């Protein structure tokens, strides 16, 4: 009797769990979403994945390390380490180095209107038409540099974003670390 009761309970819980796994399924990948929120969305592909989302998914599934994103820099790596509860590490130089934020500029007198850069831009920040001059919408440019290589006449350059009143930051006070006075351990006590 009790054997049948236990079997019955097993069946009941099996049905409940099966129902719950369908009904309360978490859509998407929450860990990948959180990782993606930390990534800078430059969409540059320097991490060897085609965009920030695929990289986030690769980290979530353990196929990629957290130190492959040069635009995110050390700060990004630390945030990822914090999120995932792993040890922080320096940026892997294989994937590039951390650079100040830059923006692509097209030298318009040299542009031949080939549209190659327009196709390369991951965020559609370049406007223009075939045989017409192209230009970068600077506000939307993520500085991914993907437009540089395809340009047949090398008329695209990356320029640093100058500091002005709108992006200036108060500098934090410089902490001068002074060696603390060390107690003299060699004093002979009587």
């Amino acid at each position: 009797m009790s054997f049948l009761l236990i079997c019955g309970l097993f069946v009941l819980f099996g049905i409940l769990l099966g129902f719950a796994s369908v009904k309360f399924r978490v859509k998407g990948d929450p860990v990948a979403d959180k990782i993606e929120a930390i990534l800078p969305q430059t969409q540059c592909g320097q991490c060897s994945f085609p965009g920030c989302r695929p990289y986030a998914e690769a980290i979530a599934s353990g196929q990629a390390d957290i130190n492959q994103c040069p635009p995110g820099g050390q700060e990004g790596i630390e945030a990822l380490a914090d999120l995932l509860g792993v040890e922080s590490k320096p940026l892997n130089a294989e994937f590039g180095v951390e650079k100040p934020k830059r923006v692509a500029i097209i030298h318009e007198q040299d542009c031949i209107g080939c549209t190659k850069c327009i196709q390369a831009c991951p965020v559609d920040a370049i406007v223009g038409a075939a045989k017409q001059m192209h230009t970068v919408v600077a506000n939307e440019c993520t500085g991914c540099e993907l437009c540089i290589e395809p340009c047949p006449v090398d008329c695209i350059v990356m320029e640093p974003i100058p500091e002005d009143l709108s992006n200036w930051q108060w500098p934090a006070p410089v902490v001068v670390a002074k060696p603390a006075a060390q107690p003299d351990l060699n004093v002979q006590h009587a």
Partner: protein
Amino acid sequence: MYSMLKLFNFHGGLQLPRHKQVSLERPVATASLPEQLIYPLQLRPGVRLTATVQPGERVLAGQVIADSEHFLATPVHAASSGVVRGIVDWLAPHPSGLPDHAVVIDTDGLEQAVAPMPGLDYRHETPATIKARIRQAGVVGLGGAAFSTAVKLNPGPNRVIDTLILNGAECEPYITCDNALMQTRARAVVEGALILLHALQIGRCLIAVEDHMTEALAALDAVLAEVKDRRLSRVAVPSVYPTGGERQLIKVLTGKEAPSGGIPADVGIVCQNVGTAAAIYDAVVNGLPLTWRLVTVTGKGVARPSNWLARIGTPIADLIEQSGGYTPDVRRLIIGGPMMGFALPDDVIPIAKASNCILAAALSEVDVDRETRACIRCGECANACPVNLLPQQLYWYSRVNNLDKLKQFSLFDCIECGCCEVVCPSHIPLVNYYRAAKSKTLTKAKQAEKAAIAKRRHDANQERKAREQAEKAERARARKAALAAAKQQEQPSES
């Protein structure tokens, strides 16, 4: 009308040496016309104006030279006649010490002005007309924030205003321009208060003045006795720094506290500086735009400290020169007061609408290069904080850039008054830590916003590319099918 109002205290605050007499010994003088007037195009953080004049154009005093559609923007008017030299990069009165686009006018000394706007009899005008005039005349908060006065008078439909506070509690050491204004133009201040009461459609105004300003109090009382309006009362508030802070003054006068992240209008109060009230009087009754202001030039680093009635846009160097030039002791040039002001890299920088004080400080007046030592967790800063924050916690979290914790400890409620820094026995530059942390938080928020936009655009780009590919494949498939069908039709006809 004397007030028998019961006053309240705010937490913390300090009794600081006032150093006010330094600039009050000489009468207010009118500054001479500078060779150049400079108008930076950033009104306040996030509000940029566009020049409405062309290089080479001749402008007259009172003419609009820059404006914008931004709801917080107010026009800027030329303070004298001359020729626009251009829109050039010029060092801005900004803590960064960076240049900003500015309209520079070479004055011609002719002092020709456009006809003033018609004077309004405000009692017969609608509040909307008065607010429109206040915006048109370029009036902003003259206490330091340069916030659009017209916007401040529109608290929104969900807030009921019952009290207007005129802030004449000039609490920061050295600054005396509001004091000088109340002594010389008490009538304009009181008339401005009446206009504001009409614009807000309310019946109570408190004019707050610190109790040590006896001459200013007497001047106000004389005018109030003449005007005999029961809606106005002047209140002498205790001289504790920072009583002149908007929220602190509201607490002292009413016992109410504006909520964190909210505005004074949430507790039914609108607060305006006394200088702003006088500017409103000039704008509404005399039809004059805001092109002049009183500015204190003081400190041991200048020979003859005093208050100047100066054209907005005048380079600081001109005011210093008319004050007898620098003394050999001068160490640092500060705009604003010693507590909340910031150092300037050069004196070619012009005074702006919100510039109330130029402090040429000698070494004895600024604590330059005091040795910073480690925090000993004494807790004095928390006792001194007028906002009831925990400066020590904020300091630790600022040092390690823990922005989430800083938010939890209400970093953005910090008014950067500097009380914590004054009492700190280890001389830690606390306010600079908070300023840096605030700016870091804002930059991060901006970056997150940009990243979200980039993500949206990238997703749209990917979706479009996938769609185009699918469409292309579909077209190819359709062509192939059509070709196959045509072939099949051809075959039977041949056989």
